[in-house]
């Protein structure tokens, strides 16, 4: 059996859930067994109606104890589902939360953890995965024995198509000691975060060259027009212009969108670590010698305050055409 954790927003599956299903199905072809799903948290029952189209059985864990995410609770739910399913492999999203609880699950299962993988496959009694390492600069191949927990890097895997009508089973999980260790006091929503940064197909990042927090209004506008997310460099975060959650780079988030706009930023190696696997990189900078141009597919040497407004207008024309 292969268990796949299916991330959702309370009403529908997230894209990462369908990437995980694709990975699970691929492994099932080699090692055999069925693909079963797991939904945790508020709305699990609702989302199960969608999720069951992708797996032979979907477990739901919800109720008053499961309103708020904590790494301990989610690991416990996944452990219970893995045991119930007799899973040899558990597939999880390599989102921030997924990468927070999947190590706990691997420890519980005494399993190998293959983290943030680009691809995964099985041969005989071994499971293999590829992933980036050394700040995204090295591609490595890893091997492990079963059981294994595999987290799937966002935007690396084709989305699964529905394939039938599975069963839904509510799973009762006792929290025990875990219950009151972490209490959520306050939720802080990300400003302008209409699309999750790590899942966005388009990321528009501004650097210190934007000049002010107000100038990020243009960045937000371009991101909104393209259905994308806003990113920022460390310098911008340090200046207090944008929230920490938007930082791209070594000490921030890693993204791999279809198009990455690097606007008014120089392109330091720490920043590259967070975006250098983007499909197409577009840079605008007034300095023709900025390192960012060496790492870009397209670029304009020019003043961001003159170039960006025209870019926005041109994109609007495209949208209206």
């Amino acid at each position, binding site marked *: 059996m292969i268990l796949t954790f299916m991330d959702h927003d309370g009403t529908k599956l997230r894209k990462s859930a369908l990437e995980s299903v694709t990975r699970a199905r691929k492994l099932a072809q080699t090692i055999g067994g069925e693909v079963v799903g797991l939904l945790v948290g508020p709305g699990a029952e609702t989302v199960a109606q969608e999720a069951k189209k992708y797996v032979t059985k979907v477990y739901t864990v919800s109720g008053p104890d499961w309103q708020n995410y904590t790494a301990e609770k989610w690991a416990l739910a996944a452990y219970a589902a893995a045991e119930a399913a007799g899973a040899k492999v558990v597939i999880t999203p390599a989102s921030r939360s997924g990468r927070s609880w999947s190590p706990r699950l691997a*420890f519980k299962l005494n399993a190998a953890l293959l983290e943030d993988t680009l691809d995964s496959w099985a041969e005989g009694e071994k499971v293999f995965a590829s992933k980036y390492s050394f700040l995204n600069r090295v591609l490595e191949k890893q091997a492990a024995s079963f059981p294994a927990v595999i987290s799937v890097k966002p935007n690396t895997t084709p989305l699964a198509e529905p394939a039938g009508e599975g069963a839904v089973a509510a799973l009762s999980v006792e929290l025990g000691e875990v219950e009151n260790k972490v209490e959520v006091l306050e939720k802080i929503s990300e400003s302008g975060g209409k699309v999750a940064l790590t899942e966005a197909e388009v990321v528009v990042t501004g650097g210190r060259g934007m000049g002010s927090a107000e100038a990020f209004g243009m960045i937000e506008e371009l991101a909104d027009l393209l259905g994308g997310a806003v990113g920022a460099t460390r310098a911008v975060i340090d200046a207090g212009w944008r929230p920490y*959650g938007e930082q791209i780079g070594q000490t921030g988030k890693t993204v791999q969108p279809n198009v990455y706009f690097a606007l008014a930023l120089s392109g330091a190696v720490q920043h590259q670590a967070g975006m250098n696997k983007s499909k197409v990189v577009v840079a605008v900078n007034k300095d023709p010698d900025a390192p960012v141009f060496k790492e870009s597919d397209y670029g304009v040497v020019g003043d961001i305050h003159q170039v960006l407004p025209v870019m926005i207008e041109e994109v609007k024309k495209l949208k209206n055409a």
Partner: protein
Amino acid sequence: MKYVAIIRQVPDGESKIKVDGGKVSLEGATLILDQMDEYAVEQIIRLKEAAGGEAVVVAFGPERTEEAMRTALAMGADRGVLITAEGYVDPITQAAALAKVLAEEAPDVVFSGGQQADWDSQALGPAVAEALGWPSVTWTTAFELDGASAKATHDLDEGAEVVKVALPAIFTAQQGLNEPRYPTLPGIMKAKKKEIKKIDAAELGVSASKVEILEQQIMELERQGKIIDGSKEPAAAAAELIRLLHEEAKVL
């Protein structure tokens, strides 16, 4: 109270990476205290300075990890415990050994870096917490002690939240938590005399790595580098850029 930072020694992100015989070679590379771990070390020193107690650094790694540990001691940590093992050992396997040392040290608060600059792993902090049955909070940007618990702000997939966490607990650090200090010259001198206790990983019953690294290659994508000079006519350059993205790259 006692505070622990779990640290690692990694190659400096600024230095070039070499691959030799299908594996990354660290020969000649500048090795440093992981920059993400610097936030962890700074945090435990601040906690100690504010409320007293002891700040201890703990690591699992090859003998050379002592250099990074000395950096942490020079910043102001009191002493170190180094579990020595050569070669690659995955974070889940490391966690079992680190948990044994932490169970003995019995700290109230543990910090470690949010992501490792060599393996790009985020697993060590949560795995050690699981081994000890303690809560874990990742990507912490603000922290304060509050009696037998701690109040922490940390990033989620989207947005952030403030949590109250029962101690002992493990937190992973990131930028924003604090501004790590540089070691001072007197600090470096003092660090030379501070205790580093070394324990062979085998003595802690560390099993073989669950994960094997088979091969590594340097991965740099070829970029097209089609740069338009917009210094004189920025509007025309911007329009041409969007046209190229739409018609040629077909991404808009």
